[in-house]
């Protein structure tokens, strides 16, 4: 069991290292010289080379990579080319705002969609299943920015319950942001839930048709007990990895929705830094997305282990 955890963690760290190299190389491969970009086309060659020296661009790539990674491990991602502030602090501020949306989204989407998926599975081919499955399909096929726009039309234009856009900057407090969080979170949850509901429904149907669930029923157990004790642990297993992938997808999905609502989150920061060629910030965000992906998948693996005794007891003899 410990070797399983150790192997998975090591694989996660390896993935992170590899993605850090890729992120670094990708940024290097971007067309154009950073110094020229920052200073503009008309800059003198002297000024350009001076800035190159200042940014360390005259050193070999691998040295810059090592420097970058060493700094990143200590939370130092360099200095923003646009705001001239440390990247670490800036990214952390935006990230915190996004985390607020992500947390609420995950909370609602995961619990809600599992419940709906299980209900659809249990009432297979009857009306609750038809309603949930159709709604899920609709949610799945509409892009998140359309969902977001429709939500704005309904809940801030027609019914003025929530603000349509955020008027605060990134320094806003949680209390200031809280009213603005619900619509983006709902938009993301709808798109995300669709996949999880479908997966949960399918695996609940599979498991409910299995022999051990029939055996449990024929033991005279109540439906509630059969579902919660016998069916759910196995039914959630395949759902777990779909959840992990979806939570990781949030990192990207958030970017689009945040722009619709003008929400000061990581997605907005990413978009503006790409426009401004703020390379240290782009690198930091890319690396953080990789961390999120790896962390989500590791969490799913550990969750699978908790649900599946085969993984836990591996190595024990008969």
């Amino acid at each position: 069991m410990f070797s399983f955890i150790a192997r998975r963690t090591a694989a996660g760290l390896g993935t992170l290292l590899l993605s850090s190299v890729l992120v670094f190389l990708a940024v290097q491969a971007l067309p154009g010289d950073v110094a020229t970009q920052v200073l503009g086309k008309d800059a003198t060659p002297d000024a350009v080379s001076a800035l190159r020296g200042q940014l360390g661009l005259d050193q070999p790539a691998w040295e810059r990579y090592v420097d970058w990674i060493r700094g990143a491990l200590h939370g130092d991602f360099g200095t923003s080319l646009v705001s001239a502030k440390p990247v670490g602090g800036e990214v952390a501020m935006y990230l915190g705002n996004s985390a607020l949306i992500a947390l609420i989204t995950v909370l609602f989407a995961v619990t809600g969609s599992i419940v709906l998926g299980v209900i659809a599975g249990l009432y297979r081919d009857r009306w609750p299943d038809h309603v949930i499955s159709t709604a899920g399909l609709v949610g799945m096929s509409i892009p998140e920015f359309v969902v977001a726009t429709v939500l704005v039309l309904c809940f801030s234009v027609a019914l003025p319950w929530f603000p349509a856009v955020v008027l605060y900057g990134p320094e806003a407090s949680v209390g200031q942001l809280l009213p603005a969080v619900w619509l983006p979170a709902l938009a993301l949850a709808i798109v995300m839930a669709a996949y999880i509901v479908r997966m949960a429904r399918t695996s609940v149907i599979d498991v409910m048709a299995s022999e051990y669930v029939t055996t449990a029923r024929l033991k005279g157990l109540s439906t509630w007990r059969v579902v919660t004790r016998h069916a759910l642990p196995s039914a959630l297993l395949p759902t777990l990895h779909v959840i992990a992938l979806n939570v990781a997808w949030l990192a990207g999905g958030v970017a689009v929705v945040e722009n619709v609502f003008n929400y000061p989150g990581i997605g907005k920061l990413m978009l503006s830094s790409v426009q401004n060629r703020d390379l240290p910030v782009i690198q930091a965000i890319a690396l953080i997305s990789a961390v999120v992906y790896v962390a989500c998948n590791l969490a799913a693996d550990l969750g699978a282990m908790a649900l599946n005794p085969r993984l836990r007891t591996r190595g024990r003899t008969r």
Partner: protein
Amino acid sequence: MASIVSVNSLSVAYRSGGQDVSVVHEVSLEVAKGRTLALVGESGSGKSTIAATLLGHLRHGSRITGGSVQVAGSDVFALPARELRRLRGNTVAMVGQNAGHALTPSMRIGRQIAEAGGTVPVVELLEQVRLPRPAELARRYPHELSGGQQQRVAIAMAIAARPDVLVLDEPTTGLDVVTQRSVLDLIAALRDELGLAAVLVSHDLGVVAHMADEVTVLRSGRVVEAAPTRQLFARPQDPYTRRLLASVPRLDDTGLALVGETGEREVRPRADVPDDAPVAVRAQDVTIDYGKSRTVHGVSFDVRRGEVLALVGESGSGKSTLAWTLAGLRPPSGGTLTHEAGDLAGPAHRRPLSLRRRVQPVFQNADTSLNPRRSVGDAVRRPLRFFGTAADRTEAAERARRLIADVRLDPALADRLPAQLSGGQRQRIGIARALAGEPDVLIADEITTALDVSVQADVLRLLDDLRRERDLACLFISHDLAVVRGIADRVVVLRHGVVVEEGPTEAVFAAPGHPYTRQLMAAALEPDPDAQPYVDDTLDWVDAADEDDLWTDQGDSHRVRRWRPLNAPVAEGVS
């Protein structure tokens, strides 16, 4: 005596394409307290459906179209949900076919048993089903138990609440003979001890003869015949029952039994294999490893042209591993494996085409080894083109039709998909596909295990015909001694990857020399309630073979690995 179970002209149907398809048609039966009724029939006879109705259970989409099921005085399908739950477990309990699938994988077995209700402590229940170290076992998960242990746990779960009726749906079908015997003995002992009425569903007439007081024979959802066990086996009335009984291979058949339409039985003498028949495949000291563990330890045998050599043993004896190696799916780790046309030690993809086509496997599950999206004609045609045995498309199509006719199927079936054929027809296609390469060696790995008895008899007959017609060398792998007795010319008995006995079939069955062979024979069940079971009087034994003195020769190439009774002086030793 009053009946505790009574089924009155029960009809069950399921809806398919807007029409009711009848699966059970006006079936009636009664079981008295303390008696055992067997429901016998082939697949599709509705026997499992009827058994499940005793617990008020119907498969998704099925419904009762007539009649009633009464258990302990209450009409099962009229009970409100709460009462029905109380009936399940407390009055009627079920042991299913495959305990490996019937136990919830994510729950410790102790909790699963405790859940079944009743006041008997879990440890006591586990002791009652003769499981060792019950306290420790209760904390395990199902996958940590062997198949036999899982089935015992399922039985413990069924008797936990001390029910009055036990429904046993093919309780030993997935188990090998030795385990089957011990599980059946356990069920019989518990049934007598607790005074249970039992309904036993089985396709295995040996099991039925051994366990039941009364038998009801079913066919396509209708009762064909119902009689006390002894009477049914001695004087079967209906031609279907007679044919069913005649199809069961017996341990004392001296050749393959051919069964007529009305159940007359004729034993065909074995084919003569000339002494100078060329050796098709020779295995010498073959060892096979899975990772670090060795599953086959230095096995040697010859298969000659026109001969059927049987590899016999329990699950885990290494017999299927050997078949896989011979087919080139798993390379051996030592020894030599040769065909008259070349070396068979390499994996199949490295064998020259000319050699590959000459050694062909037929697998146990024809339904999973055929591509479900290809017509069966296509499945036979492809190897014809691949091995170059057919020159062009039209010839291949023509030859495929002929091969399908050769395995006694209607060539018109060539356009069907595997799912549109019956199990027996699919297995014939599996054989036809193997024959497409014009092999001289056929590897038949448990090819009749998944089939009904009457279908099994037909497939065995086909195999016997083919080896005569085509002078095939056949390696026949089976755990069923009675089947082996009918079809094989020579037998190799494997235990834990070691050959413990080998010789001509007649000699081995007449005088089994090794205690393990005797144990296998004693565990085999004959379809005859009065059969005198083969008595295994051997006490505990240990292997006594050493490097230069491995065998006790019993003449006529029948030899037995040396062994001695446990706790006896070495000198007295050899049997």
